């Protein structure tokens, strides 16, 4: 038997975004093998190692420091709600959560609106310099924010006087998210059938009108993908907020890191604070799971 001939487009083996629901195979192929007991044991080990640290933090929040010191690997006995109550009524958590949410929402809105607008002519107009413009965005993929972090810090704090503000973090974050956004969105917009555009133009719509009435509503799957990616990246970001935000303006990752270094001996308190801080990301992830997965795979494929 010779080398199997496979569809060249498929050989990255990654489905396109929007095509990702893990589907049940109609014909159970024995290729995958069944679930022998050994397989379940293996799966159990993987789950324990993956979730162990997270669960330990969640449970640790329900214990006292004395309990943790006495028996590090034990369960809460009795269950203590104090740590969580302190975090949730303390005010700093909510302040940081608000900042995180605001920065993430502004970043996401900027990325989605500006990215979609920029991708439209790059996908559907014909003008000189179009490919050059596209390549300019593409080259941006090569520059992580880390490389420009010091000049960015100076630009935002001194030149723009936006040092300790939501916008000061959101604007650079959005700018660095634009390349991947344009790269993901352009093929989506190219795939909109020409007939739709011709029909719209025939009905007297301008190309600008076509964008707002047809392109925007049709680009849902693509914009959700890039939006979720931008939101999660912003929510988890550390370096840029670390340099730009102080005091009351800090985001959750900064707050968690601070709390951990200030009260490192208060293990139970650190666990409670960390657990509460990870809940929004986890809930968001569960709600958007398919999108995140799709976005990541799309990004890899691109």
């Amino acid at each position, binding site marked *: 038997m010779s080398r199997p001939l*496979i569809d060249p487009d498929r*050989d*990255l083996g990654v489905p396109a975004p929007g095509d990702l629901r893990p589907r049940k195979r109609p014909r159970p192929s024995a290729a995958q093998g069944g679930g022998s007991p050994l397989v379940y044991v293996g799966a159990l080990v993987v789950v324990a190692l993956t*979730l162990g640290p*997270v669960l330990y933090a969640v449970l640790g929040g329900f214990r006292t420091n004395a309990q943790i010191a006495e028996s590090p690997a034990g369960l809460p006995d009795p269950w203590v709600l104090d740590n969580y109550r302190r975090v949730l009524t303390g005010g700093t958590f909510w302040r940081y959560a608000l900042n995180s949410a605001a920065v993430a929402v502004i970043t996401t809105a900027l990325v989605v609106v500006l990215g979609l607008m920029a991708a439209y002519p790059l996908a559907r107009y014909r003008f000189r310099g179009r490919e050059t413009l596209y390549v300019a965005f593409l080259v941006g993929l090569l520059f992580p924010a*880390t490389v420009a972090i010091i000049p960015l810090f100076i630009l935002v704090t001194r030149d723009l006087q936006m040092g300790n503000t939501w916008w000061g973090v959101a604007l650079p974050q959005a700018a660095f998210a634009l390349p991947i956004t344009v790269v993901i969105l352009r093929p989506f917009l190219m795939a909109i059938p020409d007939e739709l555009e011709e029909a719209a133009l025939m009905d007297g719509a301008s190309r600008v009108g076509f964008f707002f009435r047809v392109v925007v509503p049709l680009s849902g799957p693509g914009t959700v993908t890039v939006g979720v990616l931008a939101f999660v990246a912003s929510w988890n970001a550390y370096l840029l907020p670390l340099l730009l935000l102080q005091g009351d303006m800090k985001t959750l990752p900064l707050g968690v890191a601070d709390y951990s270094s200030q009260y490192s001996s208060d293990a139970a308190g650190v666990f409670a604070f960390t657990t509460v801080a990870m809940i929004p990301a986890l809930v968001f992830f569960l709600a958007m799971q398919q999108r995140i997965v799709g976005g990541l795979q799309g990004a890899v494929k691109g």
Partner: protein
Amino acid sequence: MTVSTDRAAGAAAPSAPAAHPGRRRRSGAPGGALRTALEVLFFVGPALALFLVFVVWPIIRAAQFSLYRWKGFGPLTDFVGLDNYSTVLHNEVFTDAFTHNLFIVVGSVLLQMPLGLAIALLLNRRIRGQGLLRTIVFVPYVLAEVIASVVWLQLLQPEYGVIDSLLSSVGIAGPEQGWLGTPDYALWTVLVVLTWKYLGLAVLLFLAGLQGIPTDVVEAAQIDGASWWQVQRWITIPLLGPTLRVWAFLSMIGSLQLFDMVWVLTGGGPANSTTSMATFLVTEGTKRHNYGIAAAASVILFVVALVFALLYQLLVLRRDTHDRTRLARAGGGA
């Protein structure tokens, strides 16, 4: 409506772009070109402005700063040529940091590739709760690096942490200063935590790759009497090659930029045994206000990443594009 949405989503493959630049009709009306230019400006202008101000300009400034001795005050006057680069490259802290990055690059791939592959093959079998398992495996990846680090910092507390206490219950004594506090172990420990955090991404991508492998090839092999392991070894894993190579590339680029986790877990210590290029440049810039030095380090970091990307493209990924054209040709000829 639904149909066109699906089509838009499904056609987002990279083969779509640039295929039909010629289809757009030229606007014949006078002023058409001007109108097009204005529309392009309207749509691309805001994004381009944001991109120029917050990406391009800071990068140009970084290159500029790197040529001056500058403490952050007053104008750039003290031009020193390439002195900052020579200072950075002769600084043992930086060269060590560079070695640490390389260690993480190699260690991540060597650890996560086999582990990720094993877990992906395991989860790809028909077992109960498959969907749930996939979700669980992906959880650490969704957490912020900072949050993961803070949790692990507690788990790794010397003596009182749960890891040391579990180890001592099987007779292994953890190091006195803790795993993160002992120079010989600290970087290894960072690598373990990184692996925990990012393994889920590898598993997810490998699983997606596994689903793209045509079942008929596998079935043919089974009819010929191949065992499960033979199928994986000779068919599945080789066909997964391109996915593995793209993943390894992403992993390397990420490892070169390592910052958050080191900053929270060790701050680069003990005795600079866990510094990375990124922690070096942030320390120089924000703590010592050696902006010229920091900028030179960031340019070096960029060049290293670029060289990595180009070499990888040249030596490893090119094989895939090459294979693909060959396969396409073979397919066309058959």
